[in-house]
């Protein structure tokens, strides 16, 4: 069997061509702009080498805060979405729950809403006085929990991350449910015979067999987390002040100031960082597959 003939080169040409022309090329041009002083105010563009990058690295302490927020957001939401998704998946595969399909559908549905919508709705629901959340808490006597969700510096970031989890947990849940359903019940029966309890079964059977799914989901969540913008912008616009600013909100601010070169510099830095991270995750995943 001639491999080259059976898997011809032109099968990749479609994806390659479209991707190159309309995604890679503009992206590279964009990165090239970061080496200039391109801005909103003159038509002339001058090459300035690494000046912008140096400025960012030397840079204002806010940039470090944005970086920290981005990393924090990515880590926490990835973990939360996976854990909550896992918990929900376990819950919705128990025999005792009624209307499983309905519930699964409901929990998955935030995925179809755009971030703008989610931001708008939650902004109003989290209002301390008139928002639904606090009104509900007050009506069941849990007044002390009725906080300033989006304006208290101590909890605003946690709120933002929770809303993001709310939107994303359905996808992970669905994926894990399928994984759970594909685990042969024989394993569990054997474990039962050996007298294993719930946690042991979970740790030794369920988790290992779910690993590939969880890794896939992690990559999706990490790439999303690093590049997050819409969710934060529509909920808090990076505020109050700059408390919930992440790298992409900083990019956006630079563009609004008219400092396009700095904006592309920041997004280029993000690109390189994410590229490295994804490369490592994929490489380590592949190694694990080979071992397995």
């Amino acid at each position, binding site marked *: 069997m001639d491999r080259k003939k059976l898997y011809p080169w032109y099968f990749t040409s479609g994806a390659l061509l*479209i991707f190159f022309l*309309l995604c890679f090329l503009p992206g590279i041009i964009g990165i090239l702009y970061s080496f200039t002083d391109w801005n909103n105010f003159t038509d002339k563009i001058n090459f300035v080498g690494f000046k912008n990058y140096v400025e960012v690295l030397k840079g204002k302490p806010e940039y470090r805060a944005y970086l920290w927020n981005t990393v924090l957001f990515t880590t926490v939401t990835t973990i939360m979405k996976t854990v909550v998704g896992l918990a929900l998946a376990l819950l919705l595969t128990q025999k005792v729950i009624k209307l499983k399909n309905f519930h699964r559908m409901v929990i998955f549905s935030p995925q179809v809403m755009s971030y703008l919508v989610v931001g708008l709705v939650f902004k109003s629901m989290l209002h301390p006085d008139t928002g639904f959340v606090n009104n509900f808490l007050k009506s069941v006597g849990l007044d002390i929990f009725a906080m300033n969700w989006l304006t208290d510096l101590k909890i605003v970031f946690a709120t933002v991350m929770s809303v993001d989890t709310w939107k994303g947990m359905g996808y992970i849940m669905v994926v894990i449910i399928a994984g759970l359903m594909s685990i042969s019940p024989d394993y569990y029966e054997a474990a039962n015979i050996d007298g294993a309890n719930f946690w042991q079964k979970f740790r030794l059977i369920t988790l290992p067999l779910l690993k590939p799914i969880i890794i896939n989901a992690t990559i999706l969540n990490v790439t999303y987390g690093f590049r997050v913008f819409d969710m934060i912008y529509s909920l808090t616009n990076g505020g109050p002040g700059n408390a919930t600013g992440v790298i992409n909100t900083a990019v956006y601010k630079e563009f609004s100031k008219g400092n396009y070169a700095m904006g592309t510099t920041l997004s280029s830095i993000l690109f390189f960082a994410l590229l490295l991270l994804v490369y490592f995750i994929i490489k380590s995943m592949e190694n694990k597959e080979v071992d397995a």
Partner: protein
Amino acid sequence: MVTLKKSLGSIVANLVTIFISLLVLIPMVVLLLNSFKTQGESNKMSLSLPKEWVFANYKTVIEQGKLVSSFFNSLLYATCSVLIIVIVVAAAAFVIARNRKGINNFIYYFILSGIAIPINNVALMKVLQALDLVNTRLGIILVYAAINIPLSLFLSYGFISTIPREIDEAAVIDGCGPIKLFVSIILPLLKPIISTLFVLNFMAVWNDFTMPLYYLNNSAKWPMTLAVYNFFGAFENSWNLVSADIILTLLPVLIIFILGQKYIVGGVAAGSVKG
């Protein structure tokens, strides 16, 4: 005693489940109720029933937002770009998975780098103009395809790797050429991952608004996502109209989702298990 514990446990479990579902449903209910209120009432965004049901909001929104034509635009862009993505990505992932050497390896990582690449609007504008695709529906569809190809390739690659080569070999023995092999044998096996790609990409394209903003200068070509900005004001917003518009934008996708639920949710799940 055991049965009592069990039924108590099941009641609690069911209650927890219902509570979680409510968490998800309530924002949507708020939007729905809001869309029938007057502007003054709707600013509060509460769960109270409207004093009077203003059905006219929907009429206003459909007219001013040109929702009928923009619905077809949204559908067109989402469906076509997804079709293109599925075809090119499946083909590419197939050969790369089977033959991960040399240039194919390079192509794989090359395209995968696109997952992280930032999109520069000015540069993209220049490229589109050079290709004479600016302000065309085809241009937008290709752009959507281009930016979603990297992640789709990644997901497909994992899945296709699990299809045994023996199938290929069997098909060759039966006299299949590469195209016949791909279309008649491999594609059908890709149903699960195609569902995943469909859901992820359709949602991404349906909810996007920046591409049409920059690259379509004829509002007859605009999708539903931009219509909502007709109802935000200079200093304050008409929340009732905004809500009505959001409901109308959500409705088609929600309906497709409910009808195809078993298939979509099941496919997404299966697509990731193998991957």
